[in-house]
């Protein structure tokens, strides 16, 4: 019986990181006594006294302080209360953390946790997916775990990496997704074939993996075997695994929850079109959210982001070609 949630995996990874390395500390709003808005740090303040700190509402300073601490050998994990609020820490992330190693030859090992993505009723400012924004900048590693296993191992690996990691954990998966155990660790930077197939490839990540898997299941009833690739890490992006899949299927759909202009989905298509044009038997397609802010009302929200049925519809289009 599956019992560990995605959220618990994140808590456990932080527990392990704190236990393994005395240089690890946590800093974020309400993460101490309270255990965080989502309880991702529940009890950690008690279990590791003096290592888990409530931060003021100062995202810029939170990131800045993490950078300074990292330079001194600490391994800070910073929780943004919601990914959306990292917009006010944006400058420190893209200009201070991301450039530090290249400019000064000093690594910047910080992990910034971004509770990302949409849930019903959360509205325009508690639902955003910012992986595409951060991935544009040199010097950052952008991880987007879609499974309990990855949430656990990739967070642990993030803390060990010598570079700044933007850890995009999906809020929709926090409670919905469960596993028996933490399974196996896979290297950061490698994509995973989440479901093998031969007729078409869906490249996706984070919560959209599960919608895509369900869509693939739906297509199986039509007799199609759809391969689903979970990117896991959007930067670096594992182009080899993507190309190998497209080589098998000849057809590509890329699905992401972020806004449609630019970003992960166009990056994947651009890579495949440039590097493996001859492998494609049909025009590569992509599916994103709509090009508006993320709506509050569940009716609107469900239409704003890709869903199993809109992915299945897109797949049918792709397979008909």
């Amino acid at each position, binding site marked *: 019986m599956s019992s560990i949630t995605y959220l618990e995996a994140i808590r456990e990874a932080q527990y392990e990181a704190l236990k393994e390395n005395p240089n690890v500390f946590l800093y974020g*709003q*309400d993460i*101490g*006594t*309270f255990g965080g*808005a989502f309880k991702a740090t529940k009890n950690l303040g008690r279990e590791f006294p003096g290592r888990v*700190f*409530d*931060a*003021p*509402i*100062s995202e*810029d300073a939170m990131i800045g302080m993490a950078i300074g601490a990292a330079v001194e050998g600490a391994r800070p994990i910073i929780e943004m209360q*919601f990914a*959306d*609020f990292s*917009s*006010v820490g944006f400058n420190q992330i893209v200009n201070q953390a991301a450039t530090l190693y290249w400019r000064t030859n000093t690594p910047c090992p910080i992990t910034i946790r971004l509770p990302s993505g949409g849930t*019903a*009723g*959360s*509205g*325009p*400012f*508690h639902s955003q997916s910012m992986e595409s924004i951060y991935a544009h900048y040199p010097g950052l590693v952008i991880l987007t775990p879609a499974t309990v296993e990855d949430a656990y191992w990739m967070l642990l690996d993030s803390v060990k990496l010598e570079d700044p990691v933007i850890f995009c954990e999906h809020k929709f998966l926090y409670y919905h997704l469960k596993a028996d155990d933490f399974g196996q660790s896979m290297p950061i930077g490698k994509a995973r074939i989440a479901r093998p197939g031969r007729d078409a490839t869906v490249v996706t990540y984070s919560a959209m993996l599960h919608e895509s898997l369900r869509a693939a299941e739906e297509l199986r009833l039509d007799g199609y075997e759809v391969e689903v690739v979970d990117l896991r890490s959007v930067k670096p992006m594992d182009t080899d695994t993507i190309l190998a899949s497209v080589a098998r299927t000849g057809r590509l759909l890329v699905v992401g929850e972020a806004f*449609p202009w630019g970003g992960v989905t166009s990056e994947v298509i651009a890579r495949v079109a440039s590097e493996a044009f001859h492998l494609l038997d049909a025009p590569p397609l*992509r*599916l*994103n*959210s*709509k*090009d*508006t*802010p993320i*709506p*509050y*009302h*569940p*009716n*609107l929200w*469900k*239409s*704003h982001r*890709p869903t199993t049925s*809109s992915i299945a519809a897109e797949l049918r289009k792709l397979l008909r070609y």
Partner: protein
Amino acid sequence: MPSAASKTSTTAEPLAEFREDFLKALRSMVLSRTLEEKLGSLYRAGGRIVGGVYLGRGQEAFSAASGIHLRWGKDVYGPLIRDQAGRIAYGEPVIDTLRTYLGTVTGPMRGRDGNIHRGQPKIGYMAMISHLGSLLSVVAGALFARRLQGRLGDTVGATSIGDGGTSTGAFHEGMNMAAVEKLPLVVSIANNQYAYSTPTARQYACENLVDRAAGYGVAGHCVDGTDLLECVKTFRAAYQQARAGEGPQIVVGRLLRLGGHGEHDDASYVPDLQKHTHEGRDCLAVAQRQAVEHGWLTEKDVLDMQQDAKREVEQAMGLVMKEPAPDPYRENWQALSTAWLVEGQEG
């Protein structure tokens, strides 16, 4: 340069001149409390409200005492999380709150945004985004434009922030800019001792947040946020100074959030002891007692006011319940107002 922090004196003075303001504020408080209790029970019942519910319980006196000075359609108001009472005092109909929480298409936000994120910018009623502190400069900008256009007149702007929100860079930049421009702006700082679960000791290190006023070169006022009469006096002074061209006014109210950050939060981190301090008393009960003590209302008037509020909320609720939820197929998915620049929709 205005003096840094002026404590409103509490010595005997003729109170009659505050009667009208007090009663207007009190009515807003009662209506606000009633409405928010409705929201709380809707939340607990589940189903109709999807997402959080954020209430102003315990902060009504402080919020309403500011709101009564704002003229709907004339002044600029940018309320924050716990300003339901201020919004009502300003003139927002309770139905707009319900429509926004329920996300009906008839509401000012048409289901696109929800709960406390509402307003009607066209009439000077700004709709907060979630990012704390970021509304201050917007309200200041509205005043700046009016002055530029020669139509500032006696209009004033107001906005709020919590103890936590004062730690944001946006608050600092906006406050400083408003001070440099000497805009007629009243900034309420509701120091309710917590930002979500975080106590003020982890938020700032100054004695009193009003100590920041001198650093911006603006007037600062402190008030007991649980005492409506004091709030009414203090805000009257602050608004008078702002309208008289004396630049921004910071009003710090000391109080306690009487509830969780949102209805999902049981606020178990607030020590019981603190709830029984002066700052933990219920400003609504205090105000009702004051009204009776000063002979401005009878006990019956107080009950009537509550009944009126209940009726008003129930009536609005009855209407909203029948109103349609948004239909994604009839929705206009356009983020730009310039239709010819909207690209073919993806997805």
